[in-house]
């Protein structure tokens, strides 16, 4: 392409001027990339902290409810829902767990429903009706290992006496430490229902029961406030970390807005600075442009010369700016007061930051070159004849 060839040949002839222009642009671009990296690093770090525990996405009901299957179907169908399973009454679902190999060592455990895909039990295969997953706390209390035989006893009072439901179970796995802090077992929903039916003496009652609660996990961190608000609108009080998540999202929005303002100011400076440099360059080379017009270059080719030069400056400025920003980010991440913190970098500059900087720089350069392009296009061939 003739215009590109001429534009680059002109830049090559003045390497010092070209380098200065590129570095001037890099000086504008580098802080913007670093700021973008800091914003990404701060938000990502906080998100990582919150996302480290799947319980952050957990939403629990704090009162007993009466929820029918249609309610569960509707909630499960929402895009914000990551995991949903009915659960039994909150206080009633407890029992005494004893390891068959160590009689006398007993832990009082809560019975939590689980199903495939449970975010608290990643990588653990689905349990059958006689298999349970024991929390780390209960497993330690009973010195359990996967495969150990267990007996779960549920006691109910009948008049002055007591009746016991004894269930022989197997330890399928030990839950990860952060899954649940207290002594508990994760069991298929059928086991929980059987326990509650026994406690309520409904063993002969075949009418479908309504669930008294749920275990709900949002798909993403950002979905937690949405689901909490939805449940609240249905009169369901919940316990979650929605406030923390909402605060993080608000911080993200505020940092993004702040960054946008700084980027706007920086971008304006970029456009004005580059525009002025290209304008001055075009004015300085007006006679050469006129000579090219005299030799027969068309207006389009002349117009494209400063635009290509602007794009070349922007490309060079973006590359140099990214290199500067990466070096600055490395320095920031090595500062003892700032990071690295738990393996997280305070400033994160990746392909998105570089890609955005490059794309916006090229766009701004095209805009900045407009005035110079118009001036180039109006080059007068008669001026080219005056070689004095």
């Amino acid at each position: 392409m003739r215009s590109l060839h001429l534009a680059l040949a002109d830049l090559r002839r003045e390497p010092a001027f070209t380098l200065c222009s590129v570095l001037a642009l890099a000086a504008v671009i580098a802080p913007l990339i670093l700021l973008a990296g800091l914003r990404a690093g701060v938000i990502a770090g906080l998100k990582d902290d919150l996302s480290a525990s799947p319980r952050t996405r957990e939403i629990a009901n704090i009162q007993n409810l009466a929820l029918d299957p249609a309610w569960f179907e509707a909630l499960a169908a929402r895009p914000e829902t990551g995991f949903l399973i009915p659960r039994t009454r909150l206080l009633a679902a407890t029992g005494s767990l004893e390891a068959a190999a160590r009689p006398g060592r007993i832990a009082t455990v809560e019975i939590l429903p689980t199903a495939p895909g449970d975010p608290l039990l990643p990588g653990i295969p689905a349990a059958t009706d006689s298999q349970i997953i024991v929390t780390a706390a209960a497993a330690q209390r009973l010195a359990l290992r996967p495969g150990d035989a267990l007996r779960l006893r549920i006691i109910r009072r009948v008049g002055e006496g007591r009746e016991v439901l004894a269930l022989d179970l197997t330890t399928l796995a030990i839950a990860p430490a952060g899954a649940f802090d207290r002594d508990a077992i994760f069991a298929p929903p059928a086991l929980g229902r059987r326990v509650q039916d026994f406690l309520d003496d409904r063993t002969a009652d075949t009418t479908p029961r309504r669930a008294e609660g749920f275990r709900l996990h949002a798909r993403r961190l950002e979905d937690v406030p949405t689901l909490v608000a939805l449940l609240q609108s249905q009169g369901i009080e919940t316990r979650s970390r929605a406030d923390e998540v909402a605060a993080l999202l608000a911080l993200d929005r505020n940092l993004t807005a702040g960054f946008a303002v700084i980027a706007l100011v920086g971008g304006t400076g970029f456009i004005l600075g580059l525009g002025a440099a290209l304008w001055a360059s075009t004015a300085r080379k007006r006679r050469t442009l006129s000579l090219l017009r005299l030799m027969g270059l068309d207006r389009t080719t002349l117009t494209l010369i400063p635009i290509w030069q602007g794009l070349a400056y922007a490309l060079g400025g973006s590359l140099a700016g990214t290199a500067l920003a990466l070096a600055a980010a490395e320095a920031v991440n090595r500062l003892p007061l700032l990071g690295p913190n738990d393996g997280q970098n305070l400033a994160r500059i990746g392909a998105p930051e570089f890609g955005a900087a490059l794309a916006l720089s090229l766009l701004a350069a095209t805009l900045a070159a407009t005035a110079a392009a118009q001036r180039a296009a109006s080059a007068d061939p008669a001026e080219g004849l005056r070689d004095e």
Partner: protein
Amino acid sequence: MTEAPLVLEGVVATRRAGGAAFTLTIEALRLEAGSLVAVTGASGTGKSTLLDIAALARRPDNATVMAICGTDAAALWARGAKDALATLRARHFGYVLQTGGLVPFLSVGANAALAQDLAGRRDAAHLVALAGTLGIDDLLARMPASLSVGQRQRAAILRALAHRPALVLADEPTASVHPDMAATILALLADQARQAGAAVLLATHDAPAARAAGFHEVPLQPGPASSRLPALLPA
């Protein structure tokens, strides 16, 4: 029959500078292939205006006939078809200016190659052969700024003729060189143009040097605030 490289008849161009107007009238000028014409006159007599008109760089106020190799340039001016005029210049014109008029960021070879590209007549062998004839084949990779004035003028002749134009426009090509060198440059230009079959329209102060190089002299006839180029038509 080959069309004449340049035909101007009844052309009037007025130039305004500092409130004063200056009018150039070209009665009739017809340059056939291979003809060498030197327009002479003192400063301010309209030589530059004449070249501007001939180079399609300035729109005349009036033109009865204005044809470049058979193409009606007056009609293109009337239509404001400036890119079409640029194409005519690229195809049919070469230029030798006071200090060469080379594109400063292109090498000598690239300057000549650009002229060939713009004319649509890329011919590297012809370019190298012509450079050899002009004695600058070892300067093709050099940038114009690194050349002496004499070398630049040779390079300008190379660039002017590399694309086999019908007409070479030369504006004071020897004004910046030593008088001894001036004769050589003009002789070289005239000789190479003749060999290429190109007409040359030369504007110069130096009428004796032009005549010595074989140019037919046409003096501009100055008047009050005007100049007139008398009719120059082939016999």
